[in-house]
């Protein structure tokens, strides 16, 4: 157990997971992770590049991943927006890497789960509630990326990046993975069986590939198969709850704390926290909301996850947002809404 700031803990966890390439462009609160990687990764035999732009950072990462190495990049908000073309490209040409979105707040939900890139792809998105979970998710993200040959996003926030907690860093074992026999190392060149990492999957003139139509249908089918199998969630007090509160990330931790308190006071409230934002744990939410007369969504944005909640509860008319845009004065962190008494007040208000 080590006492570490979130950014340092995530960096060490990534290295423990075998990450050997990192490239990023400073943007707070992601900056701490970049600094930690630049200091820790070379000592582990890896490469960290302070890229000249987010676009260059993510494409360097794509290159390192295409060469068969565990690689990651990161940013937040606008920086992730700049990376979307490459994230989509990696989904379509099946290059696995991890993107750390150490976000300023919860306004990146659509950006993570819908993406801004082109094509029929989705991005597996893990939303840890705190540093401890972020350390686990970091390891899991590299595993899922390799398992599915797809980019995976970790959606953190300022509390996760900058809170100092005691964590246990060490490699986790999530089971065997397929060999990276697709990776480019140059040894196939000139053999007649040279390799390609290519979104269009045209293959060689002597050995044609599936081509875009069949390849992109296969990619869409792959994400269809991931959706029902990789969703994760946590929940509490849902069995007989007449009011269910849904929240993700740090906000989910605040909500579970407040709901536990309200339960202790005898109120029939439950909480539900999607851990994967895509795939959204829809069937689990549907079951958790079985007895609910109201489903409240607490998210620090103008209403983004609420769309997924409405799509998955038995009766969308029961769904109501109790969060809202809430940014600190600096523009770099959460505002007044991220506070247990405020969350409590909003839940009680909605229950009247």
């Amino acid at each position, binding site marked *: 157990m080590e006492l570490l700031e979130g950014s340092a803990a995530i960096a060490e966890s990534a290295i423990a997971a075998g990450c*050997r*390439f990192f*490239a990023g462009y400073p943007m707070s609160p992601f900056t701490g992770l970049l600094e930690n990687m630049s200091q820790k990764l070379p000592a582990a035999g890896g*490469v960290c*590049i302070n*890229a*000249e*732009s987010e*676009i*260059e*950072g993510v*494409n*360097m*990462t*794509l*290159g*390192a*991943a*295409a*060469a*068969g*190495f565990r*690689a990651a990049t990161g940013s937040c908000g606008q920086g992730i927006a700049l990376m979307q*073309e*490459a994230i989509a*490209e990696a989904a379509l*040409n099946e290059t696995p890497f991890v993107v750390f979105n150490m976000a300023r707040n919860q306004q990146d939900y659509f950006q993570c789960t819908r993406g801004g890139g082109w094509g029929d792809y989705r991005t597996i998105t893990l939303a840890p509630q705190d540093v401890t979970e972020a350390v686990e998710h970091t390891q899991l993200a590299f595993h899922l990326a390799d398992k599915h040959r797809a980019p995976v996003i970790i959606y953190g926030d300022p509390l996760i990046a900058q809170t100092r907690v005691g964590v246990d860093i060490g490699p986790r074992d999530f089971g065997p993975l397929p060999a990276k026999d697709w990776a*480019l*190392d*140059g*040894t*196939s*060149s*000139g*053999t*007649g069986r*040279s*390799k*390609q*990492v*290519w*979104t*269009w999957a*045209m*293959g*060689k*003139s*002597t050995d044609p590939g599936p081509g875009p139509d069949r390849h992109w249908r296969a990619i869409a089918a792959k994400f269809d198969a991931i959706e029902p199998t990789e969703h994760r969630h946590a929940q509490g007090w849902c069995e007989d709850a007449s009011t269910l509160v849904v929240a993700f990330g740090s906000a989910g931790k605040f909500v579970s704390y407040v709901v536990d308190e309200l339960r202790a006071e005898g109120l029939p409230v439950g909480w539900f926290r999607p851990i994967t934002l895509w795939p959204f744990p829809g069937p689990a939410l549907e079951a958790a909301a079985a007895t609910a007369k109201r489903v409240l969504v607490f998210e620090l944005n103008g209403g983004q996850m609420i769309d997924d909640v409405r799509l998955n509860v038995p009766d969308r008319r029961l769904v109501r947002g109790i969060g809202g845009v809430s940014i600190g004065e600096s523009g770099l962190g959460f505002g007044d809404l991220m506070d247990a008494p405020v969350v409590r007040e909003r839940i009680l208000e909605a229950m009247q």
Partner: protein
Amino acid sequence: MTSMSGDASVMVDTSIAPEGARLIASPKPSLLLGEHSLCPGCGEPVALRVLLEVLQELDIVGRTIGVVGHGCYGSFVRIMDIDVLQCLHGRAPSCATGIKRMRPDTAVFTMQGDGDMANEGLQEVLHAAARGEKVTCIMLNNGVFGDTGGQLTATTVIGQRTKTSISGRDGDEHGYPVPVADLVAKLQGVGYVARTAVHTAAAVAQTKRMLRKAFECQLDGRGFGLVEILTMCPTGWFVTAPEGSGYLSESMEKVYPLGELVS
């Protein structure tokens, strides 16, 4: 494929020397898996062939990785027997950086056009050069977006007609051409920069020498390498295939002088 002039039914076997001439290259490098599908008179297949010959002559084929951008030459991914990452438009120098840093024993090259390198990805190549990445970037410069049918690029020369500068490029209206090799040559971190062409036999021979030196620079770890190759695009230049070579001499070569800038 139809010929732009003359009898379309006449097929020319390029592996046989015309009467009175002699072949100075092997009929077909073994790394070439098939025929290209580009227009008659295009310079890009010539550059590809020279590149493949250089890789074989340097005996580095079994450790070579290519990163190919978006343009007509993108179709070469299908006919070159090389491990290839086909990357996003303009981003090849960054992808090549990631590959080379993780696999320092490989020879990594990018193949990009002027639209790819000078328009979409100018920042990428400049920063890769300034970082001194040990990669070889190859820019096939024909002054037009060939793949989309001949529009203005950053390297279109003044007066050149394109589909988006139909009366000819005018500096006041369209801006001025960007000499990529000259920009890169000014940066520290660079080991080899040259500009060449493939419009004459002598130029093709020079291209081969320069590509070889660029790869040697990479293999010796001396820094970033760039070879800008002026290539004919008769279709995009509104000239016939046989006129491409002369047009290149009269237009592009005057703006982009050939030679080594850093060696």
